[in-house]
């Protein structure tokens, strides 16, 4: 049943429905409403979980790691600087193959300090071994939590996942969302069955160190598991669709891509604005389309190549910057690589950093630049202050 709710509260509801045994997080804007709501749930007896208030994000994810290794399903949420403070643990959790799900309310990284949205935080950790899901609206980001746990906990995956959504733009927006019931989620997401756990009845050493004789093989295994996570996400997304009518069996979503002359590729909430802009452009005779990436890791290269086949020009909208790189954006080179040899022109456009608003007219402007072959650039710079 649809109800209207703040994005953060919908995420908190989703986390609660997944029945985590331990929740540990450290408050950071714009993630705070999620963890405050979860604290309420625990305080009111609506969620039977240990809620551990920690002194830093480093500890938040470390607590989750400890609990996960002991056999519990766990949950955390963070953003921006918090994710950076966790970074060492982020890599560690993936290497230790703990299926932790963490919400990321995407926010820019300092300096300069910015509390506003872009996706630099999660994108900076795209190589850490977690799968990355990006939601376009409150419904999608809510649903992705259920899918994330289901995929993460498969024994042929056993990897953690980020569920990313744009800070403020989605976390603080009220909009209609369908929150499944506990019975429905219990049917979709069975109790967590750990593959390994700390247990005095069956001692095991976890997180040992590997010499050069083994290290590469462990990294190989983690990469292979992350590739398998793609299939697990699809399978969970398909099953979710069958149960709830919202299908997430694909890692991308194509919007008006038939006969498109220019295709946008984007992640997250900007996709909604892009869809509205495409409708207007189409009405004016400009054949534009969108390939929305829902799963950034594992990177759905084949799916993207298929979606973009036959489109002459691709504009990747990047709410991140890979400082010093040739294309400037982090996602552009991967899209370009996915369509290599096809003659498709791929350009990155750096937009919306640090909360800069993105309007339909900006999307049109970028399409015009791409068709002229101008790209790999910032869009919307206030040149008057430079």
């Amino acid at each position, binding site marked *: 049943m*649809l109800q*209207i709710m*703040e994005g953060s509260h919908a995420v908190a509801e989703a986390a609660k429905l997944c029945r985590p045994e331990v929740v540990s997080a450290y408050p950071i804007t*714009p993630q705070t409403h999620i963890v405050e709501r979860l604290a309420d749930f625990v305080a009111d007896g609506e969620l039977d979980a240990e809620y551990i208030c920690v002194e830093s994000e480093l500890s938040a994810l470390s607590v989750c790691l400890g609990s996960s290794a002991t056999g519990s399903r766990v949950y955390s949420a963070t953003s921006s600087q918090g994710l950076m403070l966790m970074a060492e643990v982020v890599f560690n959790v993936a290497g230790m193959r703990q299926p932790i799900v963490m919400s990321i309310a995407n926010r820019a990284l300092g300096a300069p300090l910015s*509390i*506003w*949205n872009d996706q630099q935080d999660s994108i900076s950790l795209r190589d850490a071994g977690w799968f990355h899901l990006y939601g376009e*609206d409150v419904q999608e980001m809510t649903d992705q939590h259920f899918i994330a746990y289901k995929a993460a906990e498969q024994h042929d995956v056993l990897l953690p996942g980020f569920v990313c959504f*744009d800070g*403020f*733009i989605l976390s*603080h*927006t*009220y*909009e*209609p969302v369908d929150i499944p019931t506990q019975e429905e989620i219990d049917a979709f997401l069975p109790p967590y069955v750990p593959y390994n756990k700390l247990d005095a009845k069956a001692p095991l050493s976890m997180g040992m160190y590997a010499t050069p004789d083994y290290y590469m093989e462990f990294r190989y295994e983690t990469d292979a598991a992350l590739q398998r996570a793609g299939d697990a996400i699809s399978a969970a997304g398909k099953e979710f669709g069958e149960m709830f009518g919202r299908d997430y069996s694909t890692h991308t979503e194509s919007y008006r891509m038939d006969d498109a002359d220019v295709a946008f590729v984007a992640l997250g*909430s*900007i*996709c*909604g*604005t892009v*869809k*509205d802009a495409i409708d207007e452009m189409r009405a004016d005779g400009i054949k534009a389309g969108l390939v929305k990436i829902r799963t950034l890791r594992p990177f759905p290269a084949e799916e993207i190549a298929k979606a973009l086949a036959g489109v002459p020009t691709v504009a990747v909208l990047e709410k991140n910057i890979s400082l010093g790189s040739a294309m400037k954006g982090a996602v552009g080179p991967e899209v370009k690589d996915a369509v290599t040899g096809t003659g498709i022109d791929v350009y990155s456009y750096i937009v919306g950093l640090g*909360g800069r*608003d*993105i*309007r*339909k007219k900006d999307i049109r402007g970028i399409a015009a630049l791409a068709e002229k072959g101008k790209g790999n650039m910032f869009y919307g710079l206030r040149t008057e202050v430079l």
Partner: protein
Amino acid sequence: MRELRIHGRGGQGSVTAAELIATAAFKSGVYSQAFPAFGVERRGAPVQAFVRFSDEKVRLRSQIYEPDYIIVQDSSLIADVDVFSGVKEGGIALVNTENGTVEGVPDGVKLITIDATSLALEILGLPITNTTLMGAFAAATGEIELKSLEEALSERFSGPLAEKNIAAARRAYELVKEGQ
């Protein structure tokens, strides 16, 4: 799609107003979306919040530059902020003011004034104008039904506080209806 921009000051409940209007609109049967102009503003600083109403799912995420409606929670803001910026022709500006006169309203924009502060003081005992203005907005625009607004208020507040806020919203609704 219709769009509302709310101008207020930190602490006046602009964000809550946006949320409750969106909630009431949703209960009235339309898709709605509410969000604040995310900032670091402290109490007293000018703030904005936004609401979209549509018969279809709202996808657009940009801020609102050409609103159909604005609510100005405090007429003193008019000197600080260009509250009328971009308001569409035929749009409605709902302004809280004691004396009923407002400078700078663009041509083609319908001005509706209400002394929400006095009303709130009288009914709530506090100068918190947002619920009063919600009632006035319902009457001025027809975007939300009074019944849905009352429902939204009773979900957000409880007990006597809910009753008082509903009374304030209803009273403002009636005043604006009478004035039309």
